[in-house]
């Protein structure tokens, strides 16, 4: 038998998992009503699944070394194709047309989902500055999101300020919080930075949940006004379309600004900071300034997204701003490919839209998300799109065959 060792191993692994998951998967306990339910079918399912998956995995490992170089060539062929202006310009145009036409062919519900996805695109692009470019692992990004949302809700409630005033205001307040968080963590390295930012975000959430006088506690704030359209009253459906176009416009703006930042002196300083903090300082980069700028700018987009979120859903409460949200946004950045604008956009749309269209999954969305994170890190740690370094044209004696920018947004 050709695959005997693999089959044998798969058998053992299947047994292991059947044994391992036995109490929790097979036995359901309800101590309220004192019932115990035995679900033997799960045992069989786990056994089969573990056997099959482990067998396939072993086959994959066996053939992996042969396949690897092809994969690399394949990827750069696609990237090169996409970098060619003759190709990507009409492609972008097509996307643009689809985006404009979308709300007129989609249902109200679908428009709302797409708008949510666009908010996450904005969040992903913002976090991408901190994590993807500057290499600052921020696990508490949701805090800036919350700051934006609550700024809008509270300033509107107490002072009657409108959406258009508070959109930039929320972004600025969030940027300020970015500096606030950035200062104390300047000296911290990798993991510690991650944990401290997580702790900051949790503190913020707990304060919002418990300081009722300030934030109205767990019941949140409702009746947050939608953005006005020249003073005209819009119906719910019209408002949704309006919101959608607003988000599209702001996302385009976001992509534009972040692309500019990425390919600038600051952007290079951030990447150098990420690659080697000590060496970048030795080359004259002010590490403090670079880090603070990264935090502040990253937070700005989250703040803006927060205002938009509050305006869209007209109701916010602390439960929307948990660690899980930060994890999701981080997943978007990592899955998309650190530093790659296109990758982040694709990942955001995928993570938000796919579960909607695979609605049968329902409750299983989160567990699949967890599994996806693990699998992504094992199989494709660099994410979907690896941004190639920028290629430059430079003045020299003979014209070089240098192509234009690789790794376009």
């Amino acid at each position, binding site marked *: 038998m050709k695959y005997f060792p693999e089959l044998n191993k798969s058998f053992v692994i299947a047994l292991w998992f059947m044994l*391992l998951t036995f109490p929790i998967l097979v036995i359901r*306990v309800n101590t309220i009503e004192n019932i*115990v339910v035995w679900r033997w079918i*799960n045992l069989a399912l786990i056994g089969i699944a573990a056997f099959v998956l482990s067998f396939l995995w072993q086959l994959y490992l066996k053939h992996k070394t042969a396949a690897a170089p092809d994969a690399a060539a394949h990827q750069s062929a696609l990237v090169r194709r996409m970098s060619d202006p003759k190709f990507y310009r009409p492609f972008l145009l097509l996307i643009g047309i689809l985006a404009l036409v979308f709300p007129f062919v989609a249902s109200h519900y679908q428009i709302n989902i797409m708008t949510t996805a666009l908010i996450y695109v904005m969040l992903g692009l913002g976090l991408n500055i901190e994590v993807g470019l500057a290499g600052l692992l921020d696990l508490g990004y949701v805090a800036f999101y919350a700051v934006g949302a609550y700024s809008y809700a509270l300033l509107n409630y107490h002072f009657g300020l409108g959406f258009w005033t508070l959109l930039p205001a929320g972004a600025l307040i969030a940027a300020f919080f970015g500096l606030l968080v950035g200062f104390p963590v300047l000296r911290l390295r990798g993991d510690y930075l*991650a944990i401290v930012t997580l702790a900051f975000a949790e503190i913020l959430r707990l304060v919002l949940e418990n300081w009722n006088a300030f934030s109205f506690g767990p019941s949140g704030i409702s009746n947050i006004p939608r953005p006005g359209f020249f003073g005209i009253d819009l119906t719910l459906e019209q408002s949704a379309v309006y919101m959608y176009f607003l988000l599209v416009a702001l996302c385009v703006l976001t992509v534009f600004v972040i692309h500019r930042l990425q390919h600038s002196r600051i952007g290079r300083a951030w990447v150098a900071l990420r690659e080697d903090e000590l060496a970048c300082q030795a080359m004259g980069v002010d590490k403090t300034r670079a880090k603070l700028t990264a935090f502040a700018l990253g937070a700005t987009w989250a703040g803006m997204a927060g205002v938009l979120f509050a305006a869209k859903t007209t109701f916010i409460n602390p439960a929307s701003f948990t660690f*899980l949200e930060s994890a999701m946004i981080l997943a978007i950045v990592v899955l998309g490919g650190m530093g790659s604008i296109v990758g982040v956009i694709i990942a955001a749309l995928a993570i938000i839209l796919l579960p909607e269209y695979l609605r049968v999954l329902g409750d*299983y969305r989160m567990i699949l998300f967890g599994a996806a994170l693990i699998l992504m890190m094992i199989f494709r740690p660099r994410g979907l799109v690896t941004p190639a370094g920028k290629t430059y044209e430079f003045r020299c004696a003979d014209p070089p065959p240098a192509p234009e920018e690789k790794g376009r947004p």
Partner: protein
Amino acid sequence: MNFFWDLFLGGLTRGSIYALIALGYTMVYGILQLINFAHGEIYMIGAFTALIVASILTLQGLAGLPVLILAGLIAVLYASAYGFTVEKIAYKPLRQASRLSPLISAIGMSIFLQNYVMLAQTSDFLPFPNLLPPSDFLDAISVWIGPSDFVIIVTSAVVMIALSLLLKFTKMGRAMRATAQDREMAMLTGVDVNRIISRTFIIGSALAAIGGILIASHVGRINFYIGFNAGIKAFTAAVLGGIGSIPGAMVGGLVLGLAESFGTGYISSDYESVFAFAILILILIFKPDGILGRSSQQKV
């Protein structure tokens, strides 16, 4: 007894549990420089497994000490097995990768395990029976110290002493300490590093499970989410004491437990978690090496 004493005892109890869980974090971080985000979930799984076994046994008519022992033993075994498996699936393949990959994988595993238990069991809070059998001794001292508190504090102390002895005097313990100090060197001197890493996870998971069972019995209920909060706090304790330091985890756990207990008692109980997080932030910013840690110089 008076308020202070209650808070003090409560702090010791809480702190003992934090210490048990923190040990798992600190041992794994010491060896792999990885924050095992999924460790809190192992604690939770230990509690759930104990609940399941106890329920079955109770339905069969067993009660008292045998239930405690059987449920405890099986739960600890299972938790260790889960810890072992998690390491093999989510961390081992990523040992050569950057620091970010295993961290995200750990977050993914944490989310996965939480939802796994939630979907397989229930999202509700489930009552957890008091597994402590009645005892004359415990009744006698219940004037000063509740039976559950007593058992928790004593058990934790015994377990931690056992762990210290194991690390100091056994061959495996020495190998673990060596691997934590310098993995490559340990390999060169013949230590089977993979095995040591597995054993670290197994021991850490066992400790967490013990903590899970003890506290579940004490508090009286569990749900799939208890791992997250306990995990963060235990991690805080580990950092507080000096991440990578075993005695540090114990000290950190007790200090955090006491701080939380007195904080919620004298200041406010709403902001219980905020105390832990604030301490975490302050420690990491001002003294990242913790109470017992040694500072690490970066070599250029």
